[in-house]
């Protein structure tokens, strides 16, 4: 993959605040992220880590429902997104950047046939005629592996299975050949066997169409399957970023290590208790000073509780936001000593 070409999306010191009466709650604090064309970037984190808010803010989908404030900059294809008038946003949404959500059934219109809703996108953005739009919709459904696309366009969303609905969502998202697809937990509502079909589809589309994908999930194993690089988020910050292989082979941040350890893998010793990250994610109103993870970190020191750690580049492309990052093998040695 080329990395020296111009980035597709560049976030710099991106902050998102929710206004709650007098307080400002920081949902995302100071995220830097670059996505290159054709790259699959994964963002992983527990619920409340700000991953969905961040991805939806790229499309500025949050402004209608809550009092949101942005700081920093998000540049997409050379345009500063945060300063665009909403009318102009409309020409980016669904056209240059598309999004698919976790629950396909609630994102599809229940009273329109699949064909009608797909044509809508094409007629609006591509100014196609209805006949052309219909033909293109069928073609798109075929591309995403829907078995009988001619029949599918005449069906209503509820008539389809979960996996098929998600395929329809993906075809719709692809309608205008976007350069970036945001997939927010696209497989969480699906069964494992169907999940793998959808992930393979996303990865094929990425190769075939060269479309970049921002994949948001809470499931590390989904990341491992298709992402080129991974960002780990905790309480609105990226705590670790690296190429996928590097992150799984050599996790440095105590939070990443904890996340990897507490999953009951198929080779875990069933007699031993599972590794746990103690405590819970604190609410946004109680974010600790210093390192955000210090309240749950087993290695936290005085320094961690006072000052926020900088993101340090350990090896090319591998950044960790921690005062005392530890090597994976160093941790193993400690465990053996105990």
């Amino acid at each position, binding site marked *: 993959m080329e990395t020296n070409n111009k980035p597709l999306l560049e976030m710099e010191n991106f902050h998102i605040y929710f206004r709650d009466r007098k307080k400002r709650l920081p949902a995302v604090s100071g995220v830097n992220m670059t996505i290159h064309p054709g790259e699959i970037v994964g963002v992983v984190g*527990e*619920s409340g880590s700000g991953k969905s808010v961040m991805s939806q803010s790229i499309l500025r989908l949050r402004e209608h429902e809550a009092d949101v404030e942005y700081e920093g900059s998000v540049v997409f294809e050379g345009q500063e997104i945060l300063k665009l008038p909403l009318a102009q946003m409309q020409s980016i949404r669904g056209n240059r950047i598309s999004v698919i959500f976790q629950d396909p059934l609630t994102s599809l219109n229940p009273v329109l046939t699949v064909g009608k809703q797909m044509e809508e996108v094409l007629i609006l953005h591509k100014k196609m005629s209805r006949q052309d739009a219909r033909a293109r919709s069928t073609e798109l459904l075929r591309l995403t592996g829907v078995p009988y696309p001619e029949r599918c366009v005449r069906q209503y969303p509820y008539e389809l*299975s979960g*996996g*098929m609905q998600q395929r329809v969502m993906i075809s719709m998202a692809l309608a205008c050949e976007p350069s970036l697809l945001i997939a927010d937990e696209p497989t969480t509502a699906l*069964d*494992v*066997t*169907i*999940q*793998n*079909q959808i992930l*393979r589809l996303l990865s094929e589309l990425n190769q075939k169409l060269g479309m970049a994908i921002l994949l948001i999930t*809470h499931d*590390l*194993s*989904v990341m*491992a*399957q298709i992402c080129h690089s991974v960002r780990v988020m905790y309480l609105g910050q990226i705590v670790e970023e690296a190429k*996928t*292989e590097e992150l*799984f*082979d050599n996790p440095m941040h105590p939070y990443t290590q*904890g*996340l*990897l350890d*507490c*999953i*009951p*893998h*198929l*080779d*875990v010793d*069933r007699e031993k*208790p*599972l*590794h*746990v*990250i103690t405590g*819970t*994610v604190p609410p946004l109103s109680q974010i600790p000073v210093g390192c955000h993870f210090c309240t749950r970190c087993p290695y936290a020191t005085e320094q961690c509780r006072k000052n926020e750690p900088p993101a340090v580049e350990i090896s090319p492309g591998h950044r960790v936001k921690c005062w005392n990052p530890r090597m994976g093998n160093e941790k193993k040695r400690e465990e053996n000593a105990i």
Partner: protein
Amino acid sequence: MREPLLEVKGLKKRYPVYGPLGKLFKPVNHMNAVCDMCLALYEGETYGLVGESGCGKTTTGRAILGLIHPDEGEILYGGKDLAKLSDKEMRPLRKEIQLVFQDPLSSLNPRQRIGSLLEEPLIIQKIGDGESRRRAVIDILEKVGLAEEHYFRYPHELSGGQVQRLGIARALIINPKLIICDEPVSALDVSIQAQILNMLKRLQKEMNLSLLFISHDIGVIRYISNRIGVMYLGSLVEEAETEQLFEKPLHPYTQALFSSVPDLSAGRRKPEILEGERPMRTDEFMGCVFHTRCRYATDRCRTEAPRMREVSPGHKVACHNE
């Protein structure tokens, strides 16, 4: 051979499927949610029931508790057939069989304080007096890792993991023998999931509980269960001790299910991808439940349903050509 604590034999539950005009006309077909389901659960063990959504694992769990009335089959518990009992006759038995839900918050009355929520099962079962009940509540709070200060709080004040602890406490307070856990950790974050699993394992030992653990997560099932049953389309396709099953899965569905779990430590191994989707099991459905997606399927598989047979001690599989 030990006597099983609970035995399910030939359980069947059908649901009508209506045409486009709904209940105006007779059902056009029937869907078999559970069909010829058999399982035995022994005292003190954890039996894991694993399968994809819609395979009938929840229906089985609910039928055992009498929350769904099965169309056919027997559910034997302590010499009684639970399937034939009326709701009133079932009530005293609920003292011994309890349920933990996936989403405990929706199963708790939001206007009741935690103390009274926990006391309720004791009142219904007429156990103890006011003072001893209060002591029992405080006792159980501590057991599941909540504190006495939670007594006067409301359920919505708790975090997701704490609510699940409360759900478990509510099932445990009347000292049941058998607990049916229906996806108890699926709605939780991984770091909280590990806490709850560790706790369930500890409490099971302490209180000598038998668990029927229902989940779609293979890693979770493997960690918590002694024996595992794999369900597909309303029937059990394979059953074995945990080690046995993971060492040598015999049914093609079990193999596909296991290989679909991405293995983080082994790196970027591409999982085997199972093509197609689950069909509907109508009355006309013939042959092996898995034949539509199985790559080894023969003509025999399409016409004749394989029976469960024991291949090695304790390891049963329903397949013509394992």
